[in-house]
């Protein structure tokens, strides 16, 4: 286990390993996304209150769940970068930010579209939606901070601090529907206690959540690979990979 973690810090090893992982992950994720989306769109029954508009749940919830988990991944990379100053952690942090921003964007936009037929409005400034918007800006802040600094080490340090400070927002998002009055419905899937969603709707949702985790991993790995070869473009292992040595 420790030797595996140690190897993750080696750019040439990580580049080879992630290349193999991407080759496996890409077809599996695409197949699962396709199956989960078809299942949710065409085969799951409609909701007894919301009718067919609830089918947006199969992209809205997975995007939101993975956007929240992704923030913890970015903050963990930030902590590793601050404590041990491992360059790979900086690259991971930089790779997660745009993916997390896109997923949060999907959750916000699909939530707004779902809100119109369900609540009669595209947007309300309630706790859940506002804290998700803050998450979106935190991700964009990390993306912008990385580009704002000439000195990459200083950029990574600032981004690590921002990522860690922003983790305060994650439990607020999660508990916002319990702590404040909100139009937003409470969580349908519960880790403790029985879920409030029927199995015929739950299984496609779990398939889509798994697919979104796969897609998150895929996009982050691909971003890291693009970043790694640029960081090490003068290294012999990169030139060998490109076929110039």
């Amino acid at each position: 286990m420790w030797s595996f973690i140690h190897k993750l810090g080696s750019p040439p090893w990580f580049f080879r390993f992630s290349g193999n992982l991407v080759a496996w992950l890409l077809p599996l994720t695409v197949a699962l996304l396709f199956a989960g989306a078809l299942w949710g769109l065409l085969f799951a029954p409609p909701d007894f209150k919301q009718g067919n508009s609830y089918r947006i749940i199969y992209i809205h919830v997975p995007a939101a769940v993975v956007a929240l988990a992704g923030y913890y991944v970015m903050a963990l990379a930030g902590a590793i970068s601050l404590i041990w100053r491992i360059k790979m952690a900086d690259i991971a942090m930089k790779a997660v930010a745009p993916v997390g921003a896109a997923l949060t964007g999907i959750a916000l936009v699909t939530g707004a579209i779902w809100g119109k037929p369900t609540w009669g409005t595209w947007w309300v400034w309630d706790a859940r939606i506002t804290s998700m918007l803050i998450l979106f800006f935190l991700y964009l802040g990390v993306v912008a901070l990385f580009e704002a600094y000439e000195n990459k080490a200083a950029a990574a340090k600032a981004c690590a601090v921002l990522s860690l400070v922003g983790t305060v927002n994650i439990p607020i998002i999660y508990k916002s529907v319990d702590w404040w009055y909100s139009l937003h419905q409470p969580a349908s899937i519960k880790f403790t206690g029985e879920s409030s969603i029927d199995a015929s709707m739950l299984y496609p949702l779990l398939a889509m959540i798994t697919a979104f985790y796969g897609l998150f991993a895929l996009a982050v790995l691909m971003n890291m690979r693009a970043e790694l070869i640029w960081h090490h473009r003068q290294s012999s292992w990169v030139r060998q990979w490109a076929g110039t040595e």
Partner: protein
Amino acid sequence: MYFESVAEAIYMDGHGVYVWVAYAIATALLLWLVWAPSRQLRQRKAWIIADGQRRASVDAVASAHQDDDVVSVNPDQMETHR
């Protein structure tokens, strides 16, 4: 399939426009998430290859000049000077 026909699946009792637009936006963003880094990797690989070729040609010119220098101090000329 839950729906009786394709038209019914598209219409979804009036909710189709919301559902399909949401899926279209999400699909576009998810495709971008995978397409953008793969395009960046391709572009960067092309840059590294071009840079390698440029270096190789610079090295070739430099070694040709080195050969010229060797000719200018050839032993015959050195004999004449003596």
